[in-house]
């Protein structure tokens, strides 16, 4: 692979109790999957503020993945229910503003679903690779408003 070939940068915001454990399981099971994902662990998907996703894009992410416990299985009982509503609204807003759907993806991955995690990551990275680098967002970067 050429040194300056673009590698997709995907930030995954995951919950500690389910998805992170599932990712751990994928690791201990020695499952191979795409390496272009950086995992950020949070106690619960309910803790994930949509601003984290905005910040991720501002700082150079090409894609974002959000994953947590299946509805009904939240370690904090209802965190993921609140998150679900939030993501339904936020994803529509981002789509309305013209951010391609495949740049922000959502999933439920439980602690037992190591294989699902591996497949999920591969899928997400493939989709983002297809879309290419998110230069459009970075072009919103600080510029002099008037030259």
């Amino acid at each position, binding site marked *: 692979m050429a040194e300056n070939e673009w590698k997709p940068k995907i930030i995954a915001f995951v919950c500690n109790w389910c998805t992170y454990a599932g990712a751990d399981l994928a690791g201990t099971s020695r499952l191979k999957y795409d390496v272009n994902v950086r995992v950020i662990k949070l106690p619960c998907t309910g803790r994930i503020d949509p601003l984290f996703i905005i910040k991720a894009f501002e*700082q150079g992410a090409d894609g974002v993945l959000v994953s947590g416990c299946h509805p009904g299985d939240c370690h904090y009982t209802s965190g993921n229910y609140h998150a679900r509503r939030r993501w339904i609204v936020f994803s529509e807003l981002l789509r309305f503003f013209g951010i391609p759907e495949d740049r922000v993806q959502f999933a439920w991955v439980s602690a037992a679903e190591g294989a699902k995690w591996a497949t999920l990551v591969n899928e997400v990275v493939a989709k983002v690779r297809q879309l290419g680098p998110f230069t459009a967002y970075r072009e919103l970067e*600080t510029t*002099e*408003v*008037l*030259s």
Partner: protein
Amino acid sequence: MAEFKLNEAKLDELVNALKSEGYRVVAPVEEEGVFVFKEVVDPGEMRLDVLRTARSIKEWFFPRVEPTLRYKFDRGSVTCKGEMPQSPPKTVIIGCRPCDSASLPILDKLFDWDFRDEYWFKRREATTVVAVACDAPDSYCFCTSVGGSPDGTAGSDLLMRKTVGGCYLFESFTKKGWSIIETAKGTLEPAGQNEKVLVGEVPKRFDLNSVKPWLDNNFDHDYWKEISYKCLSCGACAFVCPTCHCFDIQDEADLQGGVRLKGWDSCCLPIFTRHGSGYNPRDTRDARYRQRVMHKFTYYVDKFGLTACVGCGRCCVSCPIDMNICTVVAGAAELAETST
């Protein structure tokens, strides 16, 4: 005495002549239903008939946001790179009003006060200002109450005055103004001796001489509370104002480095004076609005000998709740009369 005039049918030619001479031409242009000063791409976009643009020309000298410094972190050390306006292009602003151009000498004083702000002055040096006199002011104009007039010349290099015959008289005052006339020679005609100029009138609405002493002696007057109940504490008035100049310094950085930005701020915004401790001396709207009026009409006068208001009326037009600074100051003038 104007020696030259331009037929308004030749405005497009004027723009093209200036562009060929290497000027970046900035003029009122419509943008999504709002008129602002923008670089003119197609001469037909230029609108000299607009009395009042949404924002003033100050953003061509004092941008809404501007990098002043860039820095990189590297293993515990920092390398800085000062950011200066990189040889701002030769620019001509056409179509501002005499009130707009009058704001420039007012702000020159501030930007050369305790520190010479080269960000401001480099742009000033590179820019020629061609104002258009007002033949049809409206009820929001009050330039004559603050020392200006519909055909005032303060701050401009050249003044265009509309004639009855559909021409603009070109009156130049500075070398820069003469350069414009030189460049535009091909489009200009000689002006006659008795050109009939269309003159607008702006009635005087208050007397600054009676206002200032009242302001100096009535800091705690109930008047400030009465007028400021409706203020929403947004920044609209300060941002559209040609003479407002407060700015904030913000660092935007990550682990690799960042940029230091200078950008517009407004004393009307609630946290403008909030201290690091959390204490805010101007916690209420009356304190903030009083500050706005005092700063423009007395503090600035004490420091620099000029009133920091040109009577353009933009704040009144853009205010969500119809706060009219002219009415406020006229009210103070009235109180001054009745108290003597």
